[in-house]
């Protein structure tokens, strides 16, 4: 039994943690949010200099050739500091998509630049308020060009390349393909869209005959590709959620120890104690599920989809709850603009929605469980 990260992975985690504690305190998140910056450039640069963007990209494409486990420990720390950087869009999603499904030529074209942090990538699926589903994707690809409107797209303004879900004709899942769109090549306009968490910039991406090519060789495989990309994303985001949960729980605990009411620490009241115990319980369940997700992702295991869904469900539940009850623990002060509580409240909900809401993932999970149960 070795259900833990290796010493090397833990050391990497510690490095990232130190860097972020130093360079990315909540004042940075606040600055990005208040000034509506695209992202914290100096933090991004630091992460790039540490080589983190290349972590899981093969050496032949300029990366470090490490695996998913290394990405997981980085994700946990990015989550802990609610870092305002395009790491998830560019690395968990875009780079992974090209690595998994791109042709050799596509990999050569994009992975080195993503690995080096020279450019940022993203994935564009959603078209408004309808959940991702073959039926809900109207962006069209034909004759090497994409037209359609994607909204919201995380880091869409910063990105130079996007993996875009498109309809290439046909029925059901077979209608969907993924296209690589060079966002600097014309036919692309982007307009910022206001979200609940302005520390992570989102845009509406309008594509009008934007030059594009299909990811990989064949059309019609986009839906299953997307599903696999999202499974990986779910695991990685769940580590961000675990990190965020820990940070919110720590804030709540520190405040509960320091704040007095009626002559004693508010942390001595059972209403607060049990609230924080519940946060802890949810956090541990999320962490354990995330670990299994990490193992399945790293091994490309047969239970990846179930493990990813479980990670996402538990992670979303833990972080949303912890962020919410952290404000409640703080009382009035926690609801002010001055308080850092808001950053977790915003980020927790953003993470819970950004690659699909838990209710959708529960459907995905139970469909798998049904199939196994029938077998």
């Amino acid at each position, binding site marked *: 039994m070795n259900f833990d990260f290796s010493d090397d992975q833990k050391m990497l985690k510690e490095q990232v943690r130190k860097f972020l504690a130093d360079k990315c305190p909540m004042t940075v998140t606040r600055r990005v949010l208040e000034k509506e910056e695209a992202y914290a450039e100096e933090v991004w640069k630091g992460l790039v200099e540490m080589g983190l963007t290349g972590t899981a990209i093969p050496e032949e494409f300029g990366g470090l050739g490490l695996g998913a486990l290394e990405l997981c420990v980085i994700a946990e720390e990015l989550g802990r500091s609610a870092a305002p950087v395009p790491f998830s869009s560019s690395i968990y999603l875009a780079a992974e998509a090209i690595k998994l499904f791109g042709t050799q030529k596509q990999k050569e074209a994009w992975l080195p630049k993503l690995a080096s942090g020279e450019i940022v990538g993203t994935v564009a*699926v*959603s078209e*408004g*308020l*309808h*959940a*991702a*589903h*073959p*039926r*809900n994707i109207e962006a069209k690809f034909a004759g090497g060009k994409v037209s359609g409107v994607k*909204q*919201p797209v995380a880091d869409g303004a910063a990105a130079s390349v996007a993996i875009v879900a498109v309809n290439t004709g046909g029925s059901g899942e077979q209608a969907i393909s993924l296209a690589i769109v060079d966002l600097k090549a014309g036919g692309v306009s982007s307009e910022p*869209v*206001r*979200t*609940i*968490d302005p520390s992570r910039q*989102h845009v509406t991406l309008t594509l009008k005959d934007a030059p594009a090519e299909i990811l990989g060789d064949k059309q019609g495989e986009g839906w299953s590709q997307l599903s696999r990309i999202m499974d990986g994303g779910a695991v990685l985001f769940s580590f961000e959620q675990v990190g965020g949960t820990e940070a919110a729980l720590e804030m709540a605990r520190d405040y509960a120890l*320091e*704040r*007095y*009411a*009626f*002559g*004693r*620490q508010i942390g001595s*009241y059972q*209403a*607060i104690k049990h609230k924080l115990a519940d946060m802890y319980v949810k956090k541990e369940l999320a962490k354990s599920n995330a670990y299994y997700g990490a193992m399945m992702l790293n091994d490309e295991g047969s239970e990846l989809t179930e493990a990813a869904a479980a990670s996402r469900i538990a992670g979303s539940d833990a972080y*949303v709850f912890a962020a*919410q009850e952290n*404000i*409640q623990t703080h*009382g*009035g*002060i*926690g*609801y*002010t*603009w*001055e*308080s850092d*509580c*808001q950053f977790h*409240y915003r980020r927790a*909900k*953003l993470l*819970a*929605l*950004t*690659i*699909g*809401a*838990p*209710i*959708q993932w529960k*459907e*995905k999970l139970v*469909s798998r469980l049904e199939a196994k149960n029938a077998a």
Partner: protein
Amino acid sequence: MDFNDTPEEAAYRKQVREWLDKNATRKADAKGMELPRDLNELIAQSKAWQAKKADAGYACITWPKEWGGGGGTTIQNVIYGQEEANYLVPGGIFAIGLGMCIPTVMAWGSEEAKKRFVAPAVRGDEIWCQLFSEPAGGSDVAGLRTRAEKDGDEWVINGQKVWTSGAHFCDYGILLTRTDPNVPKHKGLTMFWIDMKDPAVEVRPIKQMSGGAEFNEVFFTNLRVKDSQRLGNPGDGWKVALTTLMNERLAVGGSQGNADTDDLIELARDVTVAGEPAIRHGGVRERIADWYVQAQGLKFTKFRTLTALSKGETPGPESSISKIVAAKKMQDLGSFGMDLQDMGGVIRDRKLSPADGAYTEQWIGAAGYRIAGGTDEILRNIVAERVLGLPGDVRVDKDLPFNQAPKGK
């Protein structure tokens, strides 16, 4: 059992409705009209409307006529409120003054003070705020630290209040201070009325997480008040404050956010779960059912209270449950409405989001609503203690002098 008025109530309602029809516009007929967004304009309109109500006997309906009130009954007050809610009229800025401050002045102020302040407040000429909460206080209101020190016939006040609603436009306020730190905390307090326009009073708005700023911090730097501004004896401030807090109307708890189950049904028809209409998803349907049942439960609990009022009885403690249920429902329903929009749920833009952005706004707002005017936890304590008769929490500071009680930072 019926929802009908008694004949007397019906007659009063008719009279109210006729007066309102003459003097205001029904919301149903007010298409495109809205109340001014500019604060000064809003205050001006509010004052004009309040004066009109006072002239007609509809301001402070239950107060005696000699104080400018309507000389009516509690149920008449409720009926007026029900009817007025159908009209586009400004309201709210006098609620704290007339609901909490002036009753305190009436109970504890000198004759001069009453003569000076009650009538102008009823007419809306002067607006009042309540200055109790402090940064160190929170749920523990009596743990306040703002000092008032006697200096001849005056008191010199230094300290800070927080969460003062409307402080930036109020004329007067009632202020709870600590005048003796050497006795247990509830025993060393004294209440004053103060002039909010005094230069020794500085008001700073508090920006909330939502972006709004309806509340203020208020700082006192050597504010000097006359001893005649005292309400009640020195050291009796907590007793005086209880008068104020008892008058804190059960009206709270109304807000459940803007989006409710009807909106959710509409949204669920439009969006999908696993590719199928969300309205066909059993989990969505269960939530709609549960929140509908909660909303109905709150509505009919209110009707039970009104029935008691209508019979001249004092309502039971049922209404204390309202905010416990409503605030959490507001947060959860908002959050779930966002979930149904999936990735699109992160958007915060009234023009792009369903129900005019109501889900997102109430998800954000509820994080504050669950705290304001009594946290979920304090309200449960209140139900447990006042309704069920369970013991209070252990109070380690009960007998300690205030300046020796543990306070943290």
